[in-house]
């Protein structure tokens, strides 16, 4: 069954406290090549049957209204992934 993948990231101008904690932990494991980390969210919406334009539009609307908060986050990607 196809899935619609929605990726949400904290807005660039917002300091991401979780990403900051992760970038602090990486060197302790010997991963010294990474200067910053930003943590986002990935949602997978499973669709029964074909992904029509209308269903994709619904997914975009859900991404903007529920899955992300436009004050602090951006929807950076909405795409269909065939199973």
């Amino acid at each position, binding site marked *: 069954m196809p899935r619609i993948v929605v990726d949400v990231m904290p807005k660039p101008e917002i*300091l991401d*406290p*979780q990403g*900051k904690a992760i970038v602090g932990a990486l060197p302790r494991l010997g991963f010294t090549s990474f200067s910053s980390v930003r943590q986002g969210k990935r949602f997978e919406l499973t669709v029964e049957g074909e992904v029509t334009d209308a269903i994709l539009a619904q997914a975009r609307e859900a991404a903007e209204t*529920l*899955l992300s*908060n436009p*004050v*602090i986050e951006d929807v950076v990607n909405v795409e269909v992934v065939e199973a």
Partner: protein
Amino acid sequence: MTELPLIGEAIAVAADAPGARRLAGARIGVVTFPGTLDDRDAARAVRLAGGTAVPLWHADTTLGDVDAVVIPGGFSYGDYLRAGAIARFAPLMSKIIDAANSDAKLPVLGICNGFQILTESHLLPGSMIKNDHLKFMCRDQVLRVENSNTAWTLDYEAGQEITVPLKNQDGQYIADEKVLDALEAEGRVVFRYVGFNPNGSRRDIAGISNAAGNVVGLMPHPEHAVEVGFGPESLDGIGGSDTDGLGFFTSVLNKIVGGNK
């Protein structure tokens, strides 16, 4: 010697005082979502202030005849997705949003998770993100009341400092500079942290209001500072009193019964 109030007894207004019956006639709804923690304390605070607390359930489709609403703290829906994000779409919330925006201007107070729900509902601007130090923090917090004209702060003086508990993980208030400037210019920063900013909130903001002043949200917990012997003073003596939070509830009750200044 004054007697300490019995637990559960109204202390702001003695039950036999003139006007007590009028206050008791004011009905304050207290909303419970799955995962709400502080609904009992909020209802107690309403009763201690002399009002009548009315339990509301998130799935209710009507507000009944309440005169004001408290959205208490906790972890509605486990804080899944974002704090307050799922609660915002509960059936009762659409009624609260409509009533808050109506001409009647229903007074609404959001405490902690309730504040997060109000920002997710767009009743209040901005948002909360994780504390800048990433830890859950629980402490007695000094606040300055910046605006004593909202429905929930009429019984305070502007500039008054109060001490109430604070306990949260996602308490860092953020908004863009334009929104922050507008909030300041319009007197909508209602509470500011004093002495110590516990979560990195922009401009030390602890609580804000909507333009009309009927909707107020804050991260600290006034409902945990309403009873002698059970508030900040008893625990660590940092000043203020045990009952600094009671004014939220007496403010709205007095406003409802028409005694607002």
